[in-house]
């Protein structure tokens, strides 16, 4: 959603400077191909793919500055951080800026808002684009005022000032030049001279509306003449209703249409409650499974299928240590489970389809929708509007397709489509089951001599690049072929993300097994395979430390060379009071874990204390301490919020969650069948230490804490009661069973 969207009049005002970049042939060609490298790689962040300054920043004659990002606000606070960056470099008040987020009609194509990439990609691009704009405006001011550019100073409210006091405003300067020029790689950065805004806890711009009932979400959009729709499906992915009574639904008062195409169906009504009632009527029909039966029994049963195997780390030698340790870890299928079911609004008018969506990738979605609707891509516009929490690929894209298909049936009328709770639980893509197997030998001095790790995983990337990646794509007639799952290559990796130990090992081997065919619908869940791999390796480090008779933190430090990693581990241990912690007494204990996300992004360590109730197996988390190094921290409070949230969410995953299924369908259809952490389950306190690295690249923090938090929990339970639980979740039944009471 835009923050104060500029009108077309604004865009056309002032002439020279504002060139609607999306209208240029170059930009259009670029969209058709997707992001391409068009300039030497010296340009940082997303300037690599979109080098034009006016794609990122425009200044109208009045001096109003509008900033554009292809990334989307997901509740992670990206809008606020980007405003801070742009205001800092342009030296203007942050509240004076307008920010337009992901919109295929207005913003650069920055692919998906995912993988903790927004700060690296868009933050870096806007930082440098803003520095370029300030430099160009400064040069123009120097010409106008007849003084050398280095004698000019910015005033903090959008003007340059000469030593004699004469002023030149950004608006008047911008009117005389074009920003449709490529960025230069080395424009001087104001923020490097000790900025005043970056590094501050500037309040999130979206919070006031969210706490007072302002319009904040796509769920809140109310367009003139808008209709309400519900999609008609079986209880979960891989099922369909048999013979729903469409005639009865159509005959219900207030039902405007039943949109049908092949097996796709949606009821459209004047009022939302009517649409819900019509859906409930249709859901009285029987259902059947259309996909092969699901494998009952152990959740990882599906991983025994054919795999593509790849050695991703190989350092020969080192065999034959004094002591060998071996262990196998797993996690079950997990759900994103946003509190608000997915929603979209679509409008077909004059041959143009506009979709308001909380998709993480408006450009890829536009491509998939164009295929699905059999419309040219330039006739489809996708505009990001915030939705309920986004923790990866959920139902956002699917419901956008459902809304668009429904809108085809009622041209000229906007259609608001929202999934029901059971549809979100039943149809959203899941984070897949994974298994990791570790084996290591220790030398006589207790150091790791050899490290072997193997991971088995399905795909972590089912995001729609074609219509076949959308639920509706398989339902329309003729159906689109399903997307073929592919592994995500290293260095970021998918199922094998963080499978290579960050620790110094003299020899070792890591093998990634990609099992393409998954029984359930698999795609990206926050941190992808890093969750299981960090859980496994960090639990295993504790098991090795125990075998070596070493303290877990000391054992990690003994195998860490990177000074930033060592800092994070030490700072976390110190803040927690690790060295002086209370010895375990059979009920209470403490656990520690550390990772660098993807082995190339943020560093995060987590220490926590638990109390295990022997009678029930319940694990109560007390104090949690984390330390994080995410490079330069633009908004430390926002960074802490991300790390805290990641920890609390991961403790819910690790302590409670597993998607249930039988042969026919998912059985986790609501919050009673898929419990997540509530207030009585969350820690007593969470404190996050931010290690700021001014001037160093932004590393992103949305996915840094999930792996460490999950492993720290299992390590604390093992410390507390001696029960080493290697399969997630650490449910009360499992803990009780492991204690053996």
């Amino acid at each position, binding site marked *: 959603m835009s923050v104060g969207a500029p009108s077309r009049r604004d865009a056309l005002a002032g002439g020279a400077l504002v060139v609607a970049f999306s209208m240029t042939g170059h930009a259009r060609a670029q969209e058709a191909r997707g992001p391409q490298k068009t300039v030497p790689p010296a340009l940082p962040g997303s300037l690599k793919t979109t080098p034009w300054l006016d794609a990122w920043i425009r200044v109208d004659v009045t001096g109003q500055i509008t900033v554009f990002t292809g990334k989307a606000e997901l509740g992670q606070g990206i809008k606020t951080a980007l405003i801070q960056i742009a205001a800092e470099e342009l030296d203007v008040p942050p509240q004076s800026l307008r920010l337009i987020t992901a919109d295929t009609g207005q913003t650069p194509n920055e692919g998906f808002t995912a993988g903790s990439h927004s700060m690296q990609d868009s933050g870096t691009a806007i930082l440098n684009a803003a520095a370029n704009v300030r430099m160009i405006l400064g040069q123009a001011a120097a010409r106008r005022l007849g003084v050398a550019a280095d004698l000019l100073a910015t005033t903090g409210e959008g003007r340059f000032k000469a030593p004699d006091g004469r002023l030149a405003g950004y608006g008047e300067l911008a009117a005389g030049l074009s920003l449709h020029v490529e960025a230069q790689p080395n424009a001087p950065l104001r923020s490097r001279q000790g900025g005043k805004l970056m590094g501050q806890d500037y309040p999130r711009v979206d919070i006031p509306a969210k706490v007072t009932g302002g319009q904040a979400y796509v*769920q809140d959009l*109310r367009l003139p003449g808008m209709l309400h729709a519900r999609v008609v499906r079986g209880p979960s992915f891989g099922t369909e209703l048999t013979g729903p009574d469409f005639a009865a639904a159509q005959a219900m008062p207030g039902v405007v249409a039943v949109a049908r195409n092949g097996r796709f169906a949606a009821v459209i009504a004047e009022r939302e*409650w009517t649409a819900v009632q019509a859906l409930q009527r249709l859901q009285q029909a029987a259902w059947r499974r259309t996909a092969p039966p699901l494998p009952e029994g152990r959740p990882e049963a599906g991983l025994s299928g054919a795999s593509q195997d790849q050695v991703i780390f190989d350092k020969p030698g080192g065999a034959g240590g004094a002591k060998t340790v071996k262990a196998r870890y797993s996690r079950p299928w997990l759900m994103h489970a946003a*509190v608000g079911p997915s929603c979209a609004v679509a409008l077909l008018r004059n041959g143009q389809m506009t979709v308001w969506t909380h998709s993480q990738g408006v450009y890829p979605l536009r491509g998939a929708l164009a295929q699905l609707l059999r419309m040219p891509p330039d006739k489809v516009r996708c505009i990001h509007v915030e939705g309920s*929490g986004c923790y990866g690929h959920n139902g956002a894209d699917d419901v956008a397709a459902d809304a668009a298909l429904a809108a085809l049936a009622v041209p000229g009328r906007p259609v608001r489509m929202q999934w029901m709770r059971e549809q979100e639980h039943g149809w959203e893509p899941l984070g897949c089951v994974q298994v990791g197997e570790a084996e290591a030998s220790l030398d006589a001095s207790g150091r790791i001599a050899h490290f072997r790790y193997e991971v088995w995983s399905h795909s972590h990337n089912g995001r729609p690049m074609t219509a076949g990646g959308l639920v509706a794509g398989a339902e329309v007639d003729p159906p689109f072929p399903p997307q073929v799952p592919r592994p995500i290559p290293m260095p970021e990796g998918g199922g094998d993300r963080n499978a290579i130990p960050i620790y110094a090992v003299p020899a070792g081997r890591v093998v990634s097994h990609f099992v393409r065919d998954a029984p359930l619908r698999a795609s990206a869940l926050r941190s992808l395979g890093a969750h299981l791999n960090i859980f496994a390796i960090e639990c295993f480090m504790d098991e090795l430390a125990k075998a070596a008779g070493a303290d877990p933190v000391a054992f990690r430090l003994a195998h860490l060379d990177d000074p930033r990693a060592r800092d994070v581990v030490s700072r976390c241990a110190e803040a927690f009071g690790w060295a002086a912690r209370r010895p375990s007494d059979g009920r209470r204990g403490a656990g520690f874990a550390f990772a660098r996300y993807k082995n190339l992004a943020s560093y995060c360590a987590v220490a926590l204390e638990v109390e295990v109730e022997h009678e029930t197996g319940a694990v109560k988390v007390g104090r949690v301490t984390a330390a994080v190094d995410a490079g330069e921290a633009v908004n430390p409070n926002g960074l802490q*919020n991300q790390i805290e949230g990641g920890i609390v969410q991961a403790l*819910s995953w690790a302590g409670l969650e597993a998607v249930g299924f039988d042969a026919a369908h998912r059985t986790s259809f*609501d*919050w009673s069948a898929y419990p997540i952490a509530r*207030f009585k389950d969350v820690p007593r306190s969470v404190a996050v230490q931010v290690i700021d690295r001014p001037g160093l690249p932004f590393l992103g923090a949305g996915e840094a804490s999930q792996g460490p938090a999950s492993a720290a929990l299992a390590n604390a339970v093992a410390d507390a009661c001696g029960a080493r639980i290697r399969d997630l979740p650490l449910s009360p039944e499992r803990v009780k069973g492991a204690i053996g009471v």
Partner: protein
Amino acid sequence: MSFVLTINGRDHPVDASPETPLLYVLRDDLRLNGAKFGCGLGQCGACTVQVDGKAAYACLLPVAAAAGRRIRTVEGLGTAEAPSPLQKAFMVEQAAQCGYCIAGMIMRAQALLDATPRPTEAEIRAHMQPNLCRCGTHMRILRAIRRAAGLPVEAASA
């Protein structure tokens, strides 16, 4: 059927079938954004409003049963410019990520503070138990409630 709903101190005539959940009337007829659809099952609290001073699930309460009772939504507490003490505490603590659950959180917490101005930590957690947050903002929500109650914002032992 016609009903008169008393919302945030004002009477609103509405026309809806009697079994319509209050939530849809608030959102679609009265254009109030605060109460959210989360589950329609009374399991998540995203739709929480106050009815006669008590926290209630707007997704379960038929409009016919809501008529004649005092209904309060987050819009009735304050505005972005003039927030209520509890809304202000949520802003100060930056107690939101996606924020979809937050209006419901505020309305449930307000019901607690109305009845028990200085609750214990255990009372706060027990009272807030029905409401779900998936972003993991719980620690900040708890701090905001403590702040609004004039309690130390750091957690005491539960």
